[in-house]
């Protein structure tokens, strides 16, 4: 079966890839493009470890075919830091120990960034609802939520 040629933009870079029809965007990111920051937790859209944004919309990359990314603008965890400068969310996750094993962390950072772009001053409840699709089996979520709230504060002060 012939592969599909897809032209897309990933973290601001024009990117082309070939993929099989059944390959998910997550498969393509990890196995074809070497962008292994997005994790496969469940593969069924329940855990959020594969979260990316597509045309500015937060999605599970495991629930999207690679072929569907044609013409789309994809942002992954690899595009979050600016060179060696961490994004404020990445810094507050370190400061607040918002991670332990780290598997859920890229997805949570991408999801939290998407929230703060829409809502720079979320309430704790808003953070918890927004991140309800990102499962963490280590932290109990409190540190994650505090880290997101702290990053929101930092970003508001900086702007």
């Amino acid at each position, binding site marked *: 079966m012939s592969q599909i040629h897809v032209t897309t933009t990933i973290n601001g870079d024009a990117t082309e890839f070939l993929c099989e029809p059944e390959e998910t965007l997550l498969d393509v990111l990890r196995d074809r493009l070497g962008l292994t920051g997005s994790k496969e937790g469940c593969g069924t*859209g329940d855990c959020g470890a594969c979260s990316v944004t597509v045309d500015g*919309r937060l*999605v599970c990359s495991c*629930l*999207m075919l690679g072929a*569907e990314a*044609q013409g789309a603008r994809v942002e992954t965890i690899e595009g979050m830091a600016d060179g060696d400068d961490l994004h404020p969310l990445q810094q507050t996750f370190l400061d607040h120990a918002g991670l332990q094993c780290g598997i859920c962390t890229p997805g949570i950072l991408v999801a939290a960034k998407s929230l703060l772009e829409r809502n720079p001053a979320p309430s704790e409840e808003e953070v918890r609802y927004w991140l309800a*699709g990102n499962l963490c089996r280590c932290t109990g979520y409190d540190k994650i939520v505090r880290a997101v709230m702290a990053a929101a504060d930092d970003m508001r002060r900086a702007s």
Partner: protein
Amino acid sequence: MRYEAPDSIEGAVGLLARTPGACHVLAGGTDLLVRLRSETLEPETILDIKRIPGMHEITPEDGGWRIGAAVSGAQINEHDGLCADWPGVAEAVGLIGSTQIQGRATLAGNLCNASPAADSVPAMVAAGALARIAGPDGTRDVPVAEVPTGPGKTSLDTGEFIASIFLPARPERSGDAYLRFIPRTEMDIAVVGCAVSLTLDADSTVDSARVALGAVGPTVVEVETAAEALVGTQVREGAQQQLATVCSAAARPIDDKRGTEHFRTHVAGVLARRAAAIAYARAKGDRA
């Protein structure tokens, strides 16, 4: 497997007609990709309808709203005009899954997946929504309630797909609401769902109503006796009690790990009266 992404409805219908083997339509993919992965579906072709113009759009039409088959739950809940007209439909679709799922999941997909517990379906039925079905003979509009025929089954013929959902013009002094019971605060499947849409006359008496239940039968249940219980009332205690009684009587749930038959039957009535109270307050213009 092949992947096809036609750029017109005619192209999609043509592919559906002439593609050998199983062909499945892809909109948001939040159900389809899970089934592909679990290999409960092994289609020869995936037909992605998202490159067809209009599929991502919410457009005003005859005072109502036409919602393309690929419009996501997030898009619906960001649309002020649609949310003002049909808050019950918006809140029902907004209850489905996480933020990530909301970024992709669609009304048309929720309908075609044909789960008895689909949240948006009772809300669409109560709203009097129409599904526009495209097929080899052109398009036809059918009431949403006529699409699901059983768990996982629809009345769509081979070669047909849903191109859009139409929510009609909302009459003056009307409101709708959807409530569901789940054992958690979110991210779960409805144990029971109930949608109520009603229109009042000038003295705040219910003039017409539609009530639909989810997850208490093999398909969505429109409860005509519930509409009768509301019409001519101001949704006070007596009317609410009668509404609860007839909704519980109309429920034909199964017993399973998420809820017993007895519990679901009771909750159908409880949710109906609560949803009716919210819909009534919205119809009167109270903020709810």
